[in-house]
């Protein structure tokens, strides 16, 4: 029986990252879709950066920023006595940055296609802006949310370069499935690499398939 720990760890990482990205990304996507601020293009560009940057570049800077001498890392060390790098928490932060555009952009697109008048109708009917966001904007953008969840989850599941840079390959903590497969290939343990890859393929397919199926059901309604 082979070790499926890395697969489970990857699933956890993708799940936690996706949850955080939806919760924090939705307000950000909303702001990007509604604001007329001249800072909007700046923030938009920053959000899109991880698409362009090679994961190793992103990983290198995260290694510095999350490290014990870095801006975030030093604060974390003071707070918890532990470093962020080489920890699951650190991977979650890194993954959130790495997958940010994949969660924000679909939600933003969905929000942008909402009718402004529809929201105004909600406000005049007595819904506060927050109320209208949850009772009108979010349900009408549900397909954007599904896309965001699928893309953020899939992108995090397949993450390699960034984890390689900041993870430290620690079993049960940062040794995710992509790293484990890479190691098996490097050590010529092709049998284990095949097994883990196959498990990943099946897992990824089943997850994506169920999400697309749900999306289709929604569409049909």
């Amino acid at each position: 029986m082979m070790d499926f720990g890395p697969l489970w760890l990857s699933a956890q990482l993708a799940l936690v990252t996706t949850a955080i990205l939806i919760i924090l990304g939705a307000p950000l996507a909303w702001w990007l879709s509604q604001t007329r601020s001249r800072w909007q293009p700046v923030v938009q560009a920053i959000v899109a950066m991880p698409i362009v940057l090679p994961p190793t570049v992103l990983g290198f800077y995260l290694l510095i920023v999350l490290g014990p001498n870095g801006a975030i890392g030093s604060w974390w060390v003071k707070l918890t006595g532990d470093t962020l790098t080489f920890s699951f928490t650190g991977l979650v932060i890194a993954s959130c940055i790495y997958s940010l555009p994949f969660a924000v952009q679909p939600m933003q697109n969905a929000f942008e296609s909402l009718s402004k008048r529809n929201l105004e109708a909600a406000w005049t009917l007595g819904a506060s802006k927050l109320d209208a966001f949850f009772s009108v904007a979010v349900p009408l953008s549900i397909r954007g949310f599904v896309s965001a969840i699928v893309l953020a989850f899939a992108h995090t599941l397949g993450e390699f370069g960034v984890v390689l840079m900041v993870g430290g390959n620690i079993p049960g903590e940062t040794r995710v499935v992509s790293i484990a497969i890479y190691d098996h290939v490097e050590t010529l343990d092709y049998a284990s690499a095949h097994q883990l890859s196959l498990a990943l393929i099946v897992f990824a397919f089943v997850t994506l398939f169920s999400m697309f199926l749900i999306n289709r059901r929604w569409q049909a309604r």
Partner: protein
Amino acid sequence: MSPLRTGFLFAALVSTNSFADENLTIAVASNFQATVNEIAAEFMAVTKIPVRISSGSTGKLYAQIVNGAPYDVFLAADSARPKLLEEAGAAVKGSRITYATGALVLWSADSALKNKDCLAVLKSGSYRRLAIANPLTAPYGLAAKEFLQAAGLFDEAENRIAYGENISQALQFVVTGNATLGLIAMSQVKGRLPVTASCSWNVPSTMHSALDQQAVLLSGSDNADAARKFMNFLQTTQVAMILEHRGYTVPE
């Protein structure tokens, strides 16, 4: 470095024409690239044979060679892969030589450890993280693990080890301060680093299996004469001086 590079480029360009017959392609482990550049320059100065260098991790180069990559000589970072190639017939039988032996260093860039005894810090456990290369994939990682086991420190250190995918990444962890200590290669310490060492201790070579780096002549080479010349050149005193300067020991 850069005038040297230009020289290679020029040589490589020329080689496609008049020197096509004597063009030599060397596959080299990444961490040995800087050294091999220097060696190749000397080699070209002596023999006028143009040299092209292709670098990568030993594992990747191995996979490429097995799949028919057109290299003449393979300078690996270990002895396992050259041995496998030789057994599989991808390398010429009897051509395998140990061209250099690496050394392991316990090293830190943490300013808090300035002028302290690196080994004492390791033994006392008063450090946050220890960076080593992946023992499964990197010879230096294996050596580091063997040393820790020999010193009876492995069990205590295990949950504080951060594994670099290779020795370069282990160095990166230490240089960026993410790991307090690192077990890295002497050749790395001798090279140019963005930070200065705060403490350093040379691990005795008796505490781990030898870090022999082996070279083989590849069976697929259509330039065996030039390749043999290069293999011989590796064993000259001229090269020995370069290797020692760069932190390697040279086999007798």
